[in-house]
């Protein structure tokens, strides 16, 4: 206590005036916050507190005024942190300056120390009783700041200091469950003095810190894959003090955790709770759809998506409105990329697409057509309807959406419409594909996730984009061919298939390396498949026109591309049969039927080979290309074989 003499006490009149002003400001805030959104009021208050602080700092630091000064600093920082949406920039320096003032009053110097070291020094040096409470409160704010910037080590260290300063006898509680959480819980909140009022009590702050720390660590564990730890932390957070919005977020995170642990039903329970707490928590709905998808409950999934779409359509997500009561909220403190991706805001267009895609995948063709048409209409809607195309979006590339729509239309029997939709893809890609596209058969580097098409960018990505355009264009021709075929217009169908095959000739594959190391470029693989399907398609049309020889050629080509393809093989047999080359046909057929395993596992087998299934828009073409007359052909050949042997 002998140090007290060092600081020169300013006149008590000044101190009293400051205290009164601080009190008046706090009182005005309490009166104002009952009235509604406090954005402007908070800004005003922040300015007023800042001004007061500036005035107090005009005098040299003195121990008698420091408690008040630190309290004013606390209040002004609360407004500052509450007012800024999430990024808290200059506050750390403010706290440091406050600590330096404390050291100045004590006659010590704290220059060139980091914030952590500064705290350590201040807590060691300060023995004055009156300063303890304001310092602890400031410590809680510092903790909040470190939490917001994900510096868990620093906050743990600080609270270790705070609790040992408070109770030096107690051993620092080690490891156990979670050190930070137990430290936070063990921290004794300084009693609020009667002299100075706080705009947000330290008790509140402690609760918020506890919940935020649990939530944040839970998210980090979730990201790291330590699911049990994440679960317990998130459960802890859910039990804490927080707003409904945050609680819904925590429940959503819990559901993600349990879903990853293989408990989809529990996940659904959590999501249900999230929606009960806050029905505006729309990400919970899209997560629910994902869980239903995993469970295979198509109806429930579609329903969830439909509800989500409706909710998004009805009230577009507004900017986060802060509740006026708490200045610092958990929303301010918890920022991680994991949270951002979990709570990605879905646009209505995305949800619409998901609905359409799921219906098409499930074979609900009529619904799929409706949704696809809705989606295409939505594209025409103007700028209000955003169509996210970035990496996190649910949407594929736009031409693929068009092709999927065409596929749905075709399956629904609306062939003419399908042709029109495909025509759009054909015309849009016209200028984007060079006459000759020389592509290395195997990519040297791993495929880049986003085919960036920088104009001045590498020729590789440019080539990749051209390749994609070629895929879409040929796929569009393929669809058109099949659609014409369905309409019974064989000549038009043949024209389209021929165009498809013609465009496919633009690609020139070459092998550069001595040995093929990389994997086959997926687009190249896809183009091979399209060529096969196109050849098969044209062959069938030739067959129908009775041009068996041309048909035979196409099927043979098809088999060259994909030697084991059952559809092409079956058609080849049929063509041979129709050309009256029955012996050859029978031999082929026997060979074909000797490998029935491959026929059965065709889809899976192909999938394994290219490590990915074919895109959704090709599925209908695959179906159409399957050989329909398997039974009758088999019977005929078996009859023939029987007669031949006999």
């Amino acid at each position: 206590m002998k140090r007290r003499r060092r600081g020169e006490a300013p006149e008590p009149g000044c101190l009293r005036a400051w205290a009164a002003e601080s009190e008046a400001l706090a009182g005005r805030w309490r009166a104002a916050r009952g009235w509604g959104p406090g954005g402007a009021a908070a800004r005003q208050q922040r300015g007023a507190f800042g001004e007061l602080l500036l005035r107090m700092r005009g005098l040299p630091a003195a121990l008698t005024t420091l408690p008040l000064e630190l309290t004013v600093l606390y209040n002004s920082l609360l407004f500052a942190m509450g007012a800024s949406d999430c990024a808290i920039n200059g506050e750390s320096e403010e706290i440091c300056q406050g600590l330096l003032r404390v050291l100045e009053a004590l006659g010590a110097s704290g220059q060139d120390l980091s914030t952590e070291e500064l705290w350590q020094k201040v807590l060691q040096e300060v023995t004055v009783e009156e300063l303890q409470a304001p310092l602890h409160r400031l410590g809680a704010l510092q903790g909040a700041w470190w939490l917001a910037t994900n510096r868990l080590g620093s906050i743990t260290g600080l609270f270790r200091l705070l609790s040992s300063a408070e109770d030096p006898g107690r051993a620092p509680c080690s490891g156990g469950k979670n050190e930070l959480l137990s430290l936070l819980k063990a921290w004794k909140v300084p009693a609020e003095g009667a002299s100075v009022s706080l705009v947000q009590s330290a008790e509140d702050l402690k609760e918020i810190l506890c919940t935020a720390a649990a939530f944040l660590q839970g998210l980090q564990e979730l990201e790291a894959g330590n699911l049990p730890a994440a679960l317990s932390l998130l459960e802890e957070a859910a039990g804490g003090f927080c707003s409904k919005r945050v609680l819904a977020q925590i429940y959503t995170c819990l559901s993600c955790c349990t879903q990853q642990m293989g408990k989809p039903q529990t996940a659904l329970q959590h999501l249900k709770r999230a929606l009960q707490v806050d029905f505006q928590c729309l990400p919970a709905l899209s997560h629910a759809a994902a869980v239903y998808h995993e469970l295979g409950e198509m109806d429930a999934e579609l329903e969830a998506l439909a509800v989500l779409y409706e909710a998004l359509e009805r009230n577009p997500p507004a900017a986060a409105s802060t509740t006026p009561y708490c200045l610092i909220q958990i929303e301010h403190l918890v920022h991680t990329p994991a949270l951002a991706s979990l709570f990605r805001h879905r646009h209505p267009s995305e949800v619409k697409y998901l609905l359409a895609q799921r219906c098409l995948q499930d074979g609900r063709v009529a619904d799929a057509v409706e949704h696809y048409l809705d989606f295409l209409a939505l594209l025409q809607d103007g700028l209000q309807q955003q169509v996210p195309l970035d990496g996190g979006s649910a949407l594929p590339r736009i031409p693929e959406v068009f092709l999927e729509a065409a596929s749905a239309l075709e399956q629904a029997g609306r062939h003419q419409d399908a042709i029109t939709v495909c025509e759009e893809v054909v015309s849009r890609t016209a200028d984007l594909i060079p006459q000759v596209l020389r592509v290395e058969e195997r990519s040297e580097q791993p495929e880049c996730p986003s085919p960036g098409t920088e104009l001045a960018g590498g020729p590789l990505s440019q080539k990749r984009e051209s390749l994609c355009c070629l895929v879409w264009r040929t796929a569009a021709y393929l669809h058109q061919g099949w659609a014409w075929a369905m309409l019974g217009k064989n000549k038009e169908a043949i024209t389209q298939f021929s165009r498809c095959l013609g465009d496919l000739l633009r690609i020139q594959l070459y092998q550069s390396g001595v040995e093929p190391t990389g994997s086959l470029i997926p687009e190249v693989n896809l183009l091979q498949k399209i060529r096969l399907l196109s050849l098969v398609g044209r062959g069938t049309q030739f067959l129908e026109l009775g041009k068996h020889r041309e048909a035979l050629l196409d099927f043979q080509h098809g088999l060259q591309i994909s030697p084991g393809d059952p559809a092409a093989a079956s058609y080849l047999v049929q063509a041979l049969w129709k050309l009256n080359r029955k012996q050859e046909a029978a031999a082929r057929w026997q060979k074909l039927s000797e490998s029935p395993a491959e026929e059965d596992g065709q889809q899976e087998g192909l999938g394994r080979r290219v490590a990915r299934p074919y895109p959704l828009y090709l599925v209908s073409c695959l179906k159409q290309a399957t050989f329909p007359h398997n039974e009758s052909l088999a019977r005929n050949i078996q009859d023939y074989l029987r007669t031949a042997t006999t």
Partner: protein
Amino acid sequence: MAHVGHRVDYLAGFCCPVGGLVSGKPRVLCHENEIYLSNGSEFVYVYDQEGKVLKAVYKCPDQVWHVELLPVPRQLYILCAHSGIYCVSLDQQSRLMEQTDGDGQESNCPSGVFPVDSDACIFPDSTLCTFTLLNNFVITLSQAQGKWWMKLHELPHPEQESPPYRQISEVGFCPGPEPGDEGDSPPSRFLPVLCCASSPGTVGSGEGLWCSGGFVLEEPLFSLLFGIDAAMLESPMILCGFPDGQLCSVPLKALSSSQAADGCHDVSSQDPPVKILHHLEEPIVFIGALRTERRAAEEEEAEDEQLFGDAGCDCVVAVGHYGKMVAVKADQREEATVPELREYYLRGPILCAACGSGSRMYYSTHSDISAVDLDWVNESSDPEDVESSTGVLPPVLSPASLSICSVVALSLSSRASEGESELLALSAKGRLMTCGLCSPEEAPPARLTPAEAGRRIKELLSGIGNASERVSFLKKAVDQKNRALASLNQVMNVSAALLSSQEGQKPIACTVTANWSCLLLQDAVTISCVLENCSEYSLEEGWTLCVQLLASPCALEEESVDSGTTFTFPIDQLLPGNKRELTLPLGSAADTKLDLPLTISCALYYSLRDILGSGSDSSEALDDFFPDDSPILSPDREGICLPLSERTIDMLQCLRFESSPPGPAASPPAAALPAPTDPVETFLKVSKEQAEPDGAKDGEQPHAPGDGNLPPSTASIRVSSELLKNALKSSSSGVPLSCATLRWLLAENAGAEALRSGEVASVRGAAPDGGEVQLLVREARKGLAPRRNALGPRAVGAVLGCRTEPPGQLRCRDGSRASGWVAGPPSTNPGLPKCCSCCPPAPGWAASPDVLVSLPARAVVASSGGPARHTGLGQ
């Protein structure tokens, strides 16, 4: 450089700062007949091109960075520095204007200046850098947290009443390594440039797609530049040119980055849909688009001009500040369609640029506006040539000059009709002009006949003659101006040196002293002025030292006319550290009447006419400036006048102490003329009649002067010895008080050396007019009848004036012919009479008079009627 035919009309002038307007922020927009102009200040002007009048001026709260116009509800969107975007409805404003016109001049902004108040701020965001409009959408670009943020907002429909401006989407991106992290303000003086490119079938293109500076881009190029997704979405694209030189494109329909709904800005994982098209490596000042394939299209469908106009542009250009320019055009080759990208180097720095509907781009540098044409048909038919110059863009550009210099904002007028377009330009000096442009086809290709050629040559030759004449004239003028500037510089240096040292010692000083000297065998009082140049600048030719003599006005003379005489001495050159002494006679005892005290003002004068080289008659001019009756030196009429010093020469300084007093011959003749209100007479009269002390102020008519044989006049003054002791503390050590007082009285008299040595209490001398004066100081005992007015019955013949300067310091100044002084107590208020008083000015000063200063003034009255007043010696 070929010249393009043009016609320039000046429309109006707008205020501009001292250094001229700086490019970047000024902006000129044109819609129908109105021109909307901002010149980088806080004003936005609306100018009516048809009526050639300024229609309205809007005063914004801060510097205007960008202006856009939305013609459909007639709204002006104004971005103010560090505050946000303000929306001003022009229709409302014109209604308001009519109202105020009807009401009369009620408003406090008389000339149609409308303040834009904070209510009009629709996007309060201090980080906003620029914005653009696309129909009813506002696209803003701001810089915060080390990133660029592009936001898309929807404007409310006009029928809806004040709904909030809904933010639809936003994207944050950081193009390049560092987006300028130093502070939140843009790091350089360059702002980013935004521009909207639409695909031909863009949504809502049916009715009135509006986007100023925006363009529709033709198909192959649109897909090639922005990708198939944007093309299929038919999304408008925003092109951004950044100060670091990056040219980016953002699809407006896919403006989203992976971010959470709760507004957390941690976008780290995924790339937003922002594509970098090119890097110009210098600040981009302009992005535009051109229609280059005009001729080819015209050949095919010559009559269908309208359809052609709708087709949009086929070439995108971006221009950097230092002259780098990039053009992109689709090259439909046989094997593939590729975007051809070509960089050009223009002569920078480029201040602004504009594109019209044709193939020409106009750009402005400090010295000129130039036009470049990107229309280039690769007409070479032989295959070898094709090899050498492949591509669809010209390999080099040949700029054509328009001969309009330092234009900081350009825009192509939409008013222009029938092929002729009009360029609107705002020059750095704030002048708005239009420049009519004729298309290159109109340039006369006519072949000349020999006769015509001869005439042309003659014209050219005479033109050359004219030009050389003009050049020599201009050269002379320039030389003259240079000289004038040098002189002005010198004058300014001297003025600054003098004016900046108002309080202390002036670097150029003029000290004035009075002396007796023998001139033409006559003793006379002369004044010597010593001009000393202690400054670091030399006084050059052109400076004149003016010395003005001015008899002090006397309070006793009601109708007294201030008589002054000015002497001027031209100074050829006075180098630093040098002195020059000038002497001027005040008049001998015999021939002139000296009106003491004299105020002598010295000043330096520099005629600005001399600077302009037309000041040969400056001396006469100077006399015009300073007529004899001018009370003070005329300070600022056609010249610069720097007062140096003002000095009062009084009787005490002119007294001559000699062993042999002047003989009776020198004594002046008896006064014949009634002097106009001699204060002495007045005083004597007043004293004799024992009138009340304030009688002097009544201005009674003096009696006729005495006949010359009056007894010597005496005047005595009592002063508190305490006061004197106190005041003379420093100089009176070891000397009796009376002697010290006398020494102090005569301190400024050059001839009073005798006093320095001996202890004298009385001294005898001659006044300039020959009168004899005796000064006597003695200490009086207590009880010597302190009367209220302090002048005993014997005290006659002295008129006294007094002035107190800062308390504690005594200074004396006599009233007129008689010598004497009156001191007030230190606390006397400063409002003492300037000149004459017969009574103690304040009750305190004679409270304990211990010292009596008696001034026998024997000869005073005799000289009272001198000859006519002393006038201009200098003539």
